[in-house]
């Protein structure tokens, strides 16, 4: 494992951000709202094993974990049996990504927590995922719109992270990259089929592209944790992924005879700082209640 640079540069300014079509630029007022990050602030100095980019990795792990939870809801509910299996596969891959990161995060944030401590024992305000992945399951077009954007984002993210200065992060990204390319293929095929299928499927797919829009900008926000991780050559600035992700999605949308919607009047924000939307609380209640009903039990 390589040693990252000294964690002294926590207060560097964000890099210039190009204005993205999804309206993703982090504004000054958002920067002001940022909260102190547990991994960055609390664990510098005291624990010699502690690394300051734990909060960044927690955001990535939580994205994968929460989306795996949502996708798991499709099993027995998909339009055909093959799709029950396919969405189960995507859920398993994302669950695997989260499980690859949580124990490592526990080893670098000074807490020594294991995967189930992160997944089952944290309250809503301690989760760092974006709002996109916590939204309730919609129709199949909604899911394909979400999966198209999220997997396109993950392809660019993990491509960049294979060059991470942290060998563990690079390793997780290398494995994940193979998986998320498949997810992107799968979502792309469906978006094209639905877009260029029947009148009804076209209408539903176009509506889904519009519904998912407000939740996209957050993926590309340069929050404090990602700026720090990028400075340390461990992470990647989310804003730098934006154009490539949009280009990937735009190609698929065009092939599906659909239209990429214009910017949204509103956008979600705050997930990386533990500010979540209404569905998150219920998601956690369902996911955690058995584990929390039996304190100290192993399964």
């Amino acid at each position: 494992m390589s040693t990252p640079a000294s964690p002294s540069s926590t207060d560097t300014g964000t890099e210039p951000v190009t204005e993205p079509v999804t309206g993703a630029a982090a504004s000054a007022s958002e920067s002001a709202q940022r909260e102190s990050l547990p991994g960055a602030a609390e664990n510098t100095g005291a624990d010699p094993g502690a690394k300051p980019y734990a909060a960044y990795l927690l955001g990535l792990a939580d994205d994968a974990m929460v989306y795996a939870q949502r996708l798991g809801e499709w099993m027995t509910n998909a339009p055909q049996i093959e799709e029950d299996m396919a969405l189960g596969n995507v859920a398993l891959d994302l669950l695997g990504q989260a499980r690859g990161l949580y124990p490592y995060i526990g080893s670098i944030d000074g807490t020594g927590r294991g995967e189930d401590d992160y997944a089952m024992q944290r309250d809503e305000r301690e989760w760092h995922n974006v709002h996109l992945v916590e939204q309730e399951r919609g129709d199949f077009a909604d899911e394909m719109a979400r999966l198209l954007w999220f997997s396109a984002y993950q392809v660019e993210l993990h491509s960049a992270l294979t060059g991470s200065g942290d060998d563990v992060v690079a390793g997780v990204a290398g494995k994940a990259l193979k998986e998320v390319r498949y997810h992107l293929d799968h979502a792309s095929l469906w978006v094209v089929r639905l877009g260029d299928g029947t009148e009804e499927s076209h209408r539903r797919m176009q509506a889904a592209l519009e519904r998912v829009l407000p939740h996209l900008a957050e993926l590309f926000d340069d929050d404090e944790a990602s700026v720090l991780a990028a400075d340390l050559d461990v992470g990647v600035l989310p804003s730098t992924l934006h154009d490539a992700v949009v280009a990937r999605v735009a190609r698929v949308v065009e092939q599906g005879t659909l239209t990429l919607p214009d910017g949204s009047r509103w956008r979600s924000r705050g997930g990386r700082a533990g500010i979540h939307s209404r569905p998150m609380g219920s998601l956690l209640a369902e996911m955690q209640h058995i584990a929390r009903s039996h304190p100290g039990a192993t399964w």
Partner: protein
Amino acid sequence: MYGNDVIDPNEPLNAAETAAYDAAAEHDDQRDGRDAVGDDFDALLAADQRIEPRDAMPDEYRETLIRQIAQHAHSEIIGMQPEGNWITRAPSLRRKAILIAKVQDEAGHGLYLYSAAETLGIDRQELLDRLHNGKQKYSSIFNYPTLTWADCGAIGWLVDGAAIMNQVPLCRCSYGPYARAMIRVCKEESFHQRQGFEILWNLMRGTESQQAMAQDAADRWWWPALAMFGPPDTGEAAKGGHTEQSMAWGIKRFSNDDLRQKFVDMTVPQAQKLGLTLPDPDLRWNEERGHWDFGEIDWDEFWQVLRGDGPCNAERIEHRRRAHDEGAWVREAANAYAAKQASREQQQKESAA
């Protein structure tokens, strides 16, 4: 891994881990004497050769197989629901991953079995319609609810264990595609059964409430699991059902009662290892018979659930129909897109020519 330190990995936990399975799989490999026998259905059966899709076969044989394979496929598909109900709530990430993979396997088994049925000249859509409109059945065991996490353990241990006991002899079934499907399905079911046992093993070594949860699940699943082998079909009872004809056709090789006894004999010692009490006061070792004696199954309940009045009959079919109906526009879109693509390719060919 935890919990496995006392479970001997070499000790068979289910019928797919016994010599009977190996023999069945090997037997299938050795069925290569067709050339000497010819294509006659009865001669093939008499020579213990496989019947293949293109062979002539009696209509009743075909219909019986379609019904049985379809019911088996439907059971896999409906069987995804009781455990699928726990995917979002599995108490650890490891358990969640194992459970998702298991439900996926069930979907895969369903598709594999529908394909086997299709070799008999019927299509999957027709079979699904028959499931949805109640003309074909699925295993009645899935009409019981999964009330606690321990039920995921009990289903794996008891329900999958019983299913494997039923299915290992089917690996030698006279119909080739079904036999081959069973060889593969049994192997995967065997993992599921072991995982179920391990869930209960951990619960029984956990807190008091975990142990109580496991015992409650065993109490509720034991009798329905025994009923999975079907009503008595030996002695007087043999005159009633399909057993005799199915045996003559090489579709069935053991009576329901024989398979049930084998299952009880294999499972009682496992319950003892787990520390679970099986809910049968008449359960005792019979030295003379060399088998476990067990009490009377409540066949009234069995017939009641089979007729549709079980705890979850309506829910299971309703869930399945809803998912299918909600997905109709997606399947229509996929077909429409495929048709457009085909016609575009046709046009390209024509313009190139």
